[in-house]
């Protein structure tokens, strides 16, 4: 089964970005080496729409970041954005636009000021498949990592993180 493995530090960075831009939607990408399925470099993107209900990568920033990825033999491993008043589930708009079939689409909901909801999906040919999010950290004892496992059932993935 597909799973998103991501470090706590990167996840914290994504949540901090989403909280900072609230009530506007925040968006960004986490790149990693091509084929490794390993998100290593967090890039916060401008939301060119600057909207509470819509996001769009700034066109010129996107080209620059894409070239940088290409030069480094990286690909977008995670594409994230926040929903600021609704649940962390892809909207029809999200599904229409999803153009990176290899990427994990990570949604962060900041509607609750205390609790951040984080869920991950694959979106391929208009079909949304939720997947568990697993926190990995090389510095953490592998046995201890298991206590960070969540989202065992893909239909009820719900990672709660106190801000």
């Amino acid at each position, binding site marked *: 089964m597909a799973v998103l493995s991501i470090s706590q530090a990167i996840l914290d960075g994504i949540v901090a970005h989403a909280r900072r831009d609230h009530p506007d*939607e925040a*968006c960004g*990408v986490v790149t990693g080496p091509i084929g490794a399925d390993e998100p290593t470099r967090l890039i916060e*993107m401008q939301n060119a*729409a600057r*909207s*509470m*209900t*819509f*996001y*769009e*990568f700034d*066109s*010129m920033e*996107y*080209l620059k970041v*894409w070239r940088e990825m290409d030069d480094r033999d990286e*690909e977008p491993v995670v*594409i994230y*954005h926040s*929903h*600021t*008043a*609704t649940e962390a589930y*892809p*909207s*029809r*708009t*999200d*599904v*229409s*636009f*999803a*153009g*990176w*079939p*290899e990427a994990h689409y990570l949604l962060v909901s900041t509607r609750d000021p205390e609790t951040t909801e984080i869920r991950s999906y694959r979106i391929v040919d208009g079909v949304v498949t939720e997947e568990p999010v697993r926190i990995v950290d090389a510095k953490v004892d592998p046995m201890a990592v298991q206590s960070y496992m969540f989202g065992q059932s893909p239909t009820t993935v719900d990672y709660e993180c106190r801000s």
Partner: protein
Amino acid sequence: MAIEVRIPTILRSYTGGSKTVDGAGDSLGGLLSDLDGKYPGLRGRLVTEEGGLHRFVNVYVNDEDVRFLGSLEAKLSDGDTVTILPAVAGGAFGFAALAALAGR
């Protein structure tokens, strides 16, 4: 006239897996017609039935977004590079409502 076209992963099924292809044309519209002869179906993913550039893609000529260069009318010269990227956009708002607001 050779123009290098960079193809995103999602469209490589049309180019036999190639990351870059060469095409010809003195405008973006001409280039896409030329490419469609070699890679049938590719143009249909980039151009709407109404004949405009699709909202779901970003297309660049060298360092410029073609939306600021006249879209399909954007002029091309030998040695230009055209980059196609899937637009990264979305959000909580329904697309239909958004389109209605934008008057499209």
